[in-house]
């Protein structure tokens, strides 16, 4: 069960992820919030179980949705920084979460063609592209990394 302290930890984790442009480790986060790594990992575990973030097998961050801790096909440049996104939806989500214009860099899984979509006031400048979601919503969290 996520409590107020877990939400506070989650908000601090997200804020630092944005600032760093990468995922902070549990040890870094513990230092940041003046706590112990085990306490951070415990809070992250509860947040993971509540689908508020996603941990890897070692208990470190894999996703702080929409941000990805690992390189993916989807890169977002905005506000002078850049982040990996978990998927195309999340790539637009990074601009939305930051409330800034930006550029979504991705590529077509079929032909490999790279594209850079400028996002201005939440709208893409290239509306010829399409978005495909393979997994039905009812099954997204059965394997969120695959989804």
């Amino acid at each position, binding site marked *: 069960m*996520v409590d107020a302290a877990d*939400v506070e930890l*989650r*908000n601090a984790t*997200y*804020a630092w992820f*944005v600032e760093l442009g990468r995922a902070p480790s549990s040890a870094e986060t513990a230092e940041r919030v003046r706590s112990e790594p085990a306490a951070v990992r415990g809070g992250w575990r509860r947040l993971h179980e*509540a*689908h*508020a973030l996603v941990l890897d097998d070692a208990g470190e961050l894999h996703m702080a*949705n*929409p941000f990805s801790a690992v390189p993916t*096909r989807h890169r977002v440049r905005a506000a002078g920084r850049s982040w990996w996104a978990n*998927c*195309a*939806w*999340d790539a*637009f*989500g*990074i*601009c*939305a*979460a*930051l*409330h800034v214009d930006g550029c*979504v860099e*991705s590529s*077509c*899984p*079929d*032909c490999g*063609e790279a*594209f850079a*979509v400028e*996002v201005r006031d*939440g*709208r*893409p400048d*290239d*509306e*010829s*592209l*399409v*978005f*495909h*979601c*393979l*997994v*039905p*919503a*009812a*099954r*997204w*969290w059965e394997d969120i990394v695959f*989804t």
Partner: protein
Amino acid sequence: MNLFRSEEHVERWLAGREAGATVTVATLAELAQAWWGDRLEPTWRPHTREQNQAILAGVGLTDEFWRLP
């Protein structure tokens, strides 16, 4: 969940697998605004299933494919 050059590219990539759902990138961007817009707010709280289903419906994603568990 990927962006494709066109629906023809989606079909070729699927290579006979069952298709999911394809929407325009404009709809995707609109969905992302509603789904993720509060994610860094200090007042953020987890969305309920009902909130998320309403966000999907708000951009026209109402069929069975988009029904949350």
